[in-house]
């Protein structure tokens, strides 16, 4: 059962990954990437990491839905109705990737992997929470800071209008001049 689930998910994941770069339609490419990443989430569940698997599914679904918007926004040919290729250095990249794959597989097969130590806890989710709030607190804090910095950086990069556009040159305007009015009566 688990073996079958593993193989189905593995084949779907790799096939989805390959199809991302073969589809002409951006919508199809995005959702084929979503298929691949959902299968990765499924593999995590097969491995017994239910919480992380479900969180991966949740995050990737939302992320790919947002990604589709940007794909359509920035691609010249989002629907793929006029097939065109936008690639460079295909041969060199292919050689590099095949070499990397062969090296990785050789390393995976030849490395003396350590034997399994200990048993999985009854509830890995509790284990993860305790680790993040205990010994791995520093990791968690770094992640939090990184996410916060990302929010700030993203807003700074993506907005065109600052407070001078909104409140006038002397910042005296009582009500901001926004193209779209918000919902709290400003």
């Amino acid at each position, binding site marked *: 059962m688990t*073996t079958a689930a*593993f193989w189905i998910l*593995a084949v779907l*994941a*790799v096939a989805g*990954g*390959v199809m*991302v*770069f073969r589809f002409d339609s951006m919508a199809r*490419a*995005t959702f084929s990437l979503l298929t*691949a*990443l959902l299968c*990765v989430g499924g*593999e*995590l569940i097969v*491995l*017994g*990491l239910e919480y*992380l698997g479900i969180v*991966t599914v949740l*995050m990737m679904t939302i*992320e790919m839905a947002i*990604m589709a918007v*940007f794909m359509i926004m*920035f*691609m010249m040919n989002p629907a793929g109705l006029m097939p065109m290729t*936008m690639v*460079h*250095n*295909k041969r060199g*990249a292919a050689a*590099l*990737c*095949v070499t*990397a*794959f062969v090296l*990785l597989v050789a390393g*995976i*097969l030849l490395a003396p992997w350590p034997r*399994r*130590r*200990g*048993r*999985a*806890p009854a509830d*890995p989710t509790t284990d*993860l929470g305790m*680790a*993040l709030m205990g010994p*791995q607190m520093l*990791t968690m804090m770094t*992640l939090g800071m990184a*996410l916060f910095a*990302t929010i700030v950086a*993203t807003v*700074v*990069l*993506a907005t*065109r209008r600052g407070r001078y556009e909104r409140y006038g040159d002397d910042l005296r305007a009582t009500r901001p001049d926004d193209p779209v009015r918000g919902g709290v009566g400003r």
Partner: protein
Amino acid sequence: MNLEVFLIVAAALFCVGLFGALTQQSIVMLMMGLELMLGGVILAAGAAWHYIAPATADGQVLVVVAITAMAVEMAIGFAVVTALFRSREVDMTDMAAELRE
């Protein structure tokens, strides 16, 4: 199933993603390649947790870090594309490289 099979699948995902990231000209497609590579990393971290050290949570923490890296990469990536496009109408890597001049 054993550790090696999981890692080979992860390596396949990683290399497909690498191929996409290297060949695609559009920045958005390049980011999809990066996402796929990070997907491979997530799978490898999960497999390492299960087959090497399930008693400690380090593997799980690695998965969390990889998921966060994905989110950060996507947010910053789209913000940069938006900023680039807004200022120079550029959405391809080769054109962005010419901006140095």
